[in-house]
């Protein structure tokens, strides 16, 4: 039987195939030196790595800040299982885990690093000393607060936080008024909401992953290979200062690759030391929404009232000092991570220049100072070993601003604390020459409000705010109820029931992607250009998932 009779398109194909054109095409294909395609490693690991790299490049190519955040959240409709690193909740021995999760090399000194030697603050400190002393005495015994008069029963940690908050506002006001900082450049935020999320590798896989790998023949060699975990930082500083320009780096970026900067490895599951988990969308909020030009943090003050709870529970001074270091590292890293997201970087696309911030942890009497330089955000498993950069935190020991109070007067005022604080204020941001601050954002559209299309702008804005709010979905999240576990899974007592639940139908609701949902229905009266065609996509709102 001839080919033409077997396949009736063969004759048309034969006609379209012209010998002459084939010749010219072949000629174009030849080059003087052979140009081979890259030889790809076809092992499963390398294939997976290439797939991951491709998805990270996709995130890098997304144009605006908001879309990047939506893109990060695309894989999970119900959010990621996240390890909650909270500012004011610290269990025993949490410092190594925090250093691992933030890849921070900690340097503890008596004072601030040499970087601050250029600032001469003796004169200024003498000038402001009396004012700060007065502010302290007002806070200690100058007025009755609302809770004193309403006989509200407050815990001692809350009382301490109230006093430290109002003292910090007072001291900040004194210093800012003295320095006359330009308000067009420096912003003061009171109790801003700060959240950050990032992936961390190098942690042993959970038992469910180990068990599933055991069942797959080609994964048997990689049963204990670490997996990514999503870490979430949530905190509320007393007060933050931010600016339009970044602080200059303490050390150059290349020095952060020095292998001598050791970072402890904590490869256990963070839940082993008291961290809890939640299902959440990845949120990155440095206290304000994209669009505010003051994107670089200068200084943040944090409360430490929660130390009272630790005293009752652990009563270990050494661990208390570590807990404060942990707070200093975590709060600085969390804030910088959120800022980095607004500049277009994320946990898969690394920083191109270092970010620096300064942190103060205080209860009014005891002060700790931290300078943090973030060199890398790329802590995910894919680059966990190959990424040589480390973040660095320079910490001071705890210092007392005064020794004691007698008859409402301060005894033993420590000038060093005030000087350290003033140095933080004098460290002004500088315009970085020749550096593109937002290399991974589009030049035309850096924010979704830059788009021309009204509908797209509104849709992206709503979706962004919805994800950032982490508000519960209208329908409750899927879960296997206890009674189902007992009567359906562990003991098959209900074989007569119809199989309707996802675990009976081999479905995995937690693997649902963000866009796997029906778009919003538009009632007829709100539709534009109603076509008299049944079906078609115009009944539903257009979506703009990145």
């Amino acid at each position, binding site marked *: 039987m001839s080919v033409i009779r077997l396949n009736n398109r063969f004759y048309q194909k034969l006609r379209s195939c012209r010998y002459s054109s084939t010749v010219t095409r072949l000629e174009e294909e030849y080059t003087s030196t052979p140009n081979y395609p890259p030889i790809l490693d076809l092992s499963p690991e390398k294939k997976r790595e290439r797939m991951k790299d491709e998805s990270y490049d996709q995130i890098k190519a997304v144009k605006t800040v908001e879309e990047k955040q939506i893109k990060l959240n695309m894989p999970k409709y119900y959010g990621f299982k996240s390890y909650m690193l909270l500012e004011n909740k610290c269990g025993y021995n949490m410092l190594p885990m925090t250093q691992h999760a933030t890849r921070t090399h900690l340097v503890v000194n008596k004072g601030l690093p040499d970087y601050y030697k250029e600032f001469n603050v003796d004169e200024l400190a003498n000038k402001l000393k009396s004012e700060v002393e007065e502010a302290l005495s007002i806070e200690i015994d100058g007025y009755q607060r609302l809770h004193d008069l309403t006989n509200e029963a407050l815990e001692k940690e809350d009382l301490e936080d109230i006093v430290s908050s109002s003292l910090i506002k007072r001291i900040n006001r004194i210093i800012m008024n003295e320095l*006359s900082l330009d308000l067009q450049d420096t912003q003061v935020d009171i109790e801003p909401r700060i959240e950050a999320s990032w992936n961390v590798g190098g942690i042993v896989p959970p038992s469910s992953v180990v068990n599933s790998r055991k069942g797959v023949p080609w994964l048997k060699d990689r049963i204990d290979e670490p997996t990514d975990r999503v870490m979430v930082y949530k905190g509320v500083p007393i007060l933050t200062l931010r600016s339009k320009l970044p602080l200059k780096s303490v050390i150059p970026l290349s020095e952060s690759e020095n292998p001598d900067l050791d970072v402890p490895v904590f490869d256990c599951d963070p839940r082993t030391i008291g961290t809890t988990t939640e299902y959440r969308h990845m949120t990155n909020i440095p206290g304000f929404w994209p669009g505010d030009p003051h994107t670089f943090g200068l200084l943040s003050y944090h409360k430490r009232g929660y130390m009272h709870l630790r005293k009752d529970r652990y009563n270990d001074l050494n661990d208390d000092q570590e807990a404060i270091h942990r707070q200093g590292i975590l709060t600085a890293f969390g804030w910088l991570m959120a800022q980095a997201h607004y500049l277009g970087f994320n946990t898969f696309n690394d920083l191109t220049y270092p970010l620096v911030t300064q942190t103060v942890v205080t209860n009014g009497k005891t002060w700790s100072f931290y300078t943090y330089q973030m060199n890398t955000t790329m802590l995910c498993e894919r680059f966990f070993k190959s990424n040589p950069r480390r973040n660095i935190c320079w910490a001071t020991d705890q210092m007392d601003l005064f020794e004691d109070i007698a008859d409402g007067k301060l005894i033993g005022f420590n000038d060093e604390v005030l000087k350290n604080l003033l140095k933080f204020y004098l460290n002004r941001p500088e315009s970085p020459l020749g550096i593109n601050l937002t290399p991974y954002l589009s030049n035309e559209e850096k924010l979704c409000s830059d788009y021309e299309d009204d509908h797209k702008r509104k849709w992206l804005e709503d979706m962004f705010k919805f994800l950032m709010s982490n508000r519960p979905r209208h329908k409750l999240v899927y879960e296997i*109820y206890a009674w189902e576990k007992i009567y359906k899974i562990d003991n098959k007592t209900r074989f007569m029931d119809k199989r309707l639940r996802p675990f009976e139908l081999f479905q995995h609701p937690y693997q649902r992607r963000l866009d796997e949902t029906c778009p919003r229905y538009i009632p007829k009266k709100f539709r534009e250009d109603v076509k008299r065609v049944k079906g078609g996509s115009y009944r539903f709102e257009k979506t703009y998932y990145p």
Partner: protein
Amino acid sequence: MRITPVLLKQHLGWHFYKHWVVQGKVKPLETGATAILKSKGIPVYDPKDIISEKRTIEKIQVIGERDLPQPLDETHPNWHETPLFKVGNNNVLLEGLNQAQIVTNSVKIADDLPNKINVEALPKSVDKVMKSIIMQSHVFDAEQKTLPKIKDPERPAWNFPRIYGISQERRNKIITHKLINLLENTSDKDLAKQRYIFEDLLFSYPFERNGQLAQLEVSGNVVMTSTKPLPPITNDSLESHNLPNIDPIDPLITFTKEHIYELRNIYPIKSTVKAHHPHTIFIHFDREFVKNLYEEEVTTEQIFGRSLLHTFTVAASYARQKYGDGKTLDEPVTVQCVQTDGRIFHFGVLQLNTLNLLDASTKNVWYQTPLQYLFENCEYVKGKPVLEGYNNQIIQQLHSFYRNV
């Protein structure tokens, strides 16, 4: 899993039925033990008579971590037979400013600021910062809390989706702090050193009016104090000015009547503090909390009345601290006030001449501006942050208040 829903997944009736089917067929076996025991003369008892013992359950008094709250009745230690008429932070007066004038014995001189307070134009850079402050407090702050329920009077049963955003309380807090920061930044350094800022204070001033006890108890959300008291604004004769007449309404109407109370004079800042003289009070206004007793919307007049009552309470409690319990003052006390919800601004100045609130010869003096708006609209419009209709008068007036020495 929620605890509330009734599951009924495991059908107990069905299970009980199945159990009954099986167990119903079981017959008790006759072992012959009773007959053997009886034959040997051993008495046989019914096991129920021996095993089931009668228990009496004793009541245990549970002592909690904390004492139970006192019941709010005659047994309360602060219960008094004579009722107290009280105005708190969230009350407003029925007749608004007119009623407040009668209660505080104040006459309104003009719908403007006193001549002594000069309102001057400011450089354009200040307006620029001001605009960014508005944007930061109304748009760019990242707080996301459930906002109050939206109600449509046309469709009262309609449930709108709850919106997440910046709460009114936070807006008030941010804008006040940033405004004070701006005022200090644009003023003289020495002036800023004379002023202190206090937050979350409570002022209380009790008084008697025609045999009825009354107390004003308000919180100055943010209070600016100064090292020197403000001088009087006017020395003119007040004979031509009269108090308004709200007959037949009682001046203490919509004061809440309470039997559990403590009469106390509170000016919370101690006189040992260098700057303890009240200068300007910033009152926050939040429609969610500040309400009429009878559900009507709070009117502009009532907002004015609130400003006067708050300012009077601060001035009067300060005068008590300074001059003791007498009703005449050696020198008048002057206090300025700014009431705001972030968008509306109301400025007032009170000169307290007397604490005798029924004195027809001496009266207190009240100046105020009309209600002003800082802007028309500031929100995301189609995904774009927008600020429309900015009013530069507000910052100028605030600045003149701040500079007033």
